[in-house]
């Protein structure tokens, strides 16, 4: 019960996620080669800690995250490219581990929304501006113009 209630609140949620020691990457995990280590860190930022809420394995101190960090480093040392490492991790843990979902049909709506909305909104604005301009220029019909001219001439 108390766990559920904790989860229910903004703050308690944060608290639960981050409670405990906030120490992610430990010195003993780090690779001696700074280039490989930098690649490992960059890859880790895109992989989700499976037992946490929306935390990357680079930030998490969960045991599972540590295992995954070590796995990523092992693959890198074995000579994998970044893509190969990611594919390997996904093949073992599923797409759920990717913090950036793949661009495929299933996620089309997710990736497409910003573009689509910008386009639709932009077209709508242009169209309504154009129709409004027509409205503005058409505001005086030929008859009205004629009567206006007549009034002006009278003076």
């Amino acid at each position, binding site marked *: 019960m*108390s766990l*559920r*209630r*904790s*989860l*229910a*609140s*903004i*703050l*308690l*949620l*944060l*608290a*639960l*996620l*981050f*409670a*405990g*020691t*906030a*120490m*992610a*990457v*430990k*010195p003993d995990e*780090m690779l001696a080669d700074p280039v490989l280590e930098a690649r490992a860190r960059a890859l880790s*930022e*895109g992989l*989700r800690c499976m037992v946490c*809420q*929306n*935390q*990357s394995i680079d*930030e998490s101190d969960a045991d599972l995250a540590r295992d995954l960090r070590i796995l990523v480093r092992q693959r890198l040392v074995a000579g994998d490219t970044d893509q190969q490492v990611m594919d390997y991790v996904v093949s073992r843990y*599923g*797409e*759920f*581990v*990717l*913090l*950036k*979902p793949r661009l495929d049909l*299933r*996620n089309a*709506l*997710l*990736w497409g*929304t*910003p573009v689509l*909305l*910008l386009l639709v*909104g*932009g077209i709508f*604005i242009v169209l309504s*501006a154009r129709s*409004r301009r027509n*409205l*503005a220029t058409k505001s005086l019909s030929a008859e009205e113009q004629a009567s206006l001219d007549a009034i002006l001439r009278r003076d």
Partner: protein
Amino acid sequence: MVETGHFALVLAFALSLVQMTVPLFGARLGNQRLMAVGGPVTVAGFVLTALSFAALASAYASSDFSVASVWENSHSLQPLIYKLTGTWGNHEGSMLLWVLILTFFGALVAAFGSNLPATLRANVLAVQGAIGAAFFLFILLTSNPFVRLNPAPIEGRDLNPVLQDLGLAVHPPLLYLGYVGFSICFSFSVAALIEGRIDASWARWVRPWTLLAWMFLTGGIAMGSYWAYYELGWGGFWFWDPVENASFMPWLAGTALLHSAIVMEKRSALKIWTLLLAILTFSLSLLGTFLVRSGVLTSVHAFASDPTRGVFILGILTLFIGGSLALFALRASRLTAGGLFHPISREGALVLNNLFLTTATATVLVGTLYPLALEALTGDKISVGAPFFDLTFGPLMLPLLVLVPFGPLLAWKRGDVFAVAQRLMAAFAIALTAMLVTGLFIDGASVFAALGIGLAVWLVAGALTDLAVKSGVGSVAPAIMFRRFAGLPRSVFGTALAHLGLGLTLLGIVATLSFGTEKILSMRAGDTVELSGHRLRFVGLYPAQGPNYSEDRGRFELIGASGSPVGEISSAKRFFPVRQTMTTESGIKTLGFSQLYISLGDAGKDGSVVVRLWWKPLVTLIWGGGLVMMAGAAMSLMDRRLRVGAPSRRRKQALASAGLP
């Protein structure tokens, strides 16, 4: 006292039922007496809710563990301040705070709304009453904070240690003031739809409320971000967490509303859009409440296993969002479209602002809800995290931020973009210089860093240009210039300050992300480490005892150029026995606008400690910029024309001085 609070809450619910019906019928029937019921009932509802809240707070202050919520979230050894803030550090109490603020805002409208048309006022209060009634019922049925325990426990279970911080005193109240502040804009919109017309007093009221709510929400988000930054101990300031997104969406939509309301007030254009935006903004506030309160974020399954609260809020959500949008669909065509404008004009610029901000809001919304929807529909689980938002939200902000300095300089109705560009030449030159200097002279600067710094400087310089141009720099004599500057409307300063604050926040974000450095290492007492030119010596680990925790405090000395210590930083690991929880107290030293950040890790057997160090250049500007934005909103609120009732007072004075009755 506790029963008094409970009773007051039930009475407040009953009054909200009166508030949502009687004035509405009064307005419908044109009955002055029925409409007049709204005011006193609203004020009485607020007084009762305040009484109820005070009762709960006093139960927390006196550690009355016979109250279930106090027992679950408090401890007799906690310092008084955390006992008090614990009142809203839990689900039940925070919902009570929510309705307290709701009724407070309602009471403000009732008390100061005498210059509103009577039917509009009655309808606004009725809509406020309806929102109140729904949430009172929610609290009483599913989240009652006054439930008693028998027998009463001797000791409480302690407030979650992460929440035992001053941040809890400030962050939730500010956030709720923002969320709930938008309810007023919502109620005005729905009232306008019920009446089928929008008049001048509508815009005069909605704009200051939007400003006020936006100001609080800005503060709430900035404060929450800083709190997470120092409390969680890994130096991040924004995580694109669904809970953060829940507060960020109303902010984005509210920012759009703020801008479209200007067009509506000044030029009475964009009426229908502004009204829709006001509805959407509060809907997103409600959605945020649902996302956070229902547990749906943890997992769709957690939501399904205990759905009472979730389903209740979902019902409220459907009723208010669905109802208001349906009303909008039915009635919006009755509202007349407003003034005309050329695409290149201040109005046009604000329309573009709205396009980008609305798209950004939708992007955050889809990113937050997509995994939930996908899991509910197909069972597939995906994650949408920071890399997604960086790739979508970032590019959307880029054109918007480039255009910001143009907006305030464009004229209403028909603007001259080339003249504006000419005036912005100096700002552009400064931004370009900043970009080149960053790119060419700072080691390790990426293209992103150079562009980002350039853009931030462009925003700051653009905001200053706005003030300079409007006070006539370069075209009039200095004396006149100063007089003009002093005579500028407060809202002009408000705009400039808010845009300047945005630039500062961006500067902080880009500098921290691009030039921040990090070190993770094992240290023993006496070891020194260097990070971005700062030398730190680890003095040692010292145990200490707090009121309800024990801690190991790691002390560090900052070594100056001469080799002697010039400052001390300490970070601690705290253990709270009641909850069996460890927390990390980060050590932070502010140097100028930058910070050194230390977080202590596990102690090894050999006496060494894992230490994580960060150098965070200009990081304080992230939240400092938020404060400047708030100052901008406050400045704008002080503008004469926004002080409610000012126009009519002025008119009366004018009439009086002209010798008319």
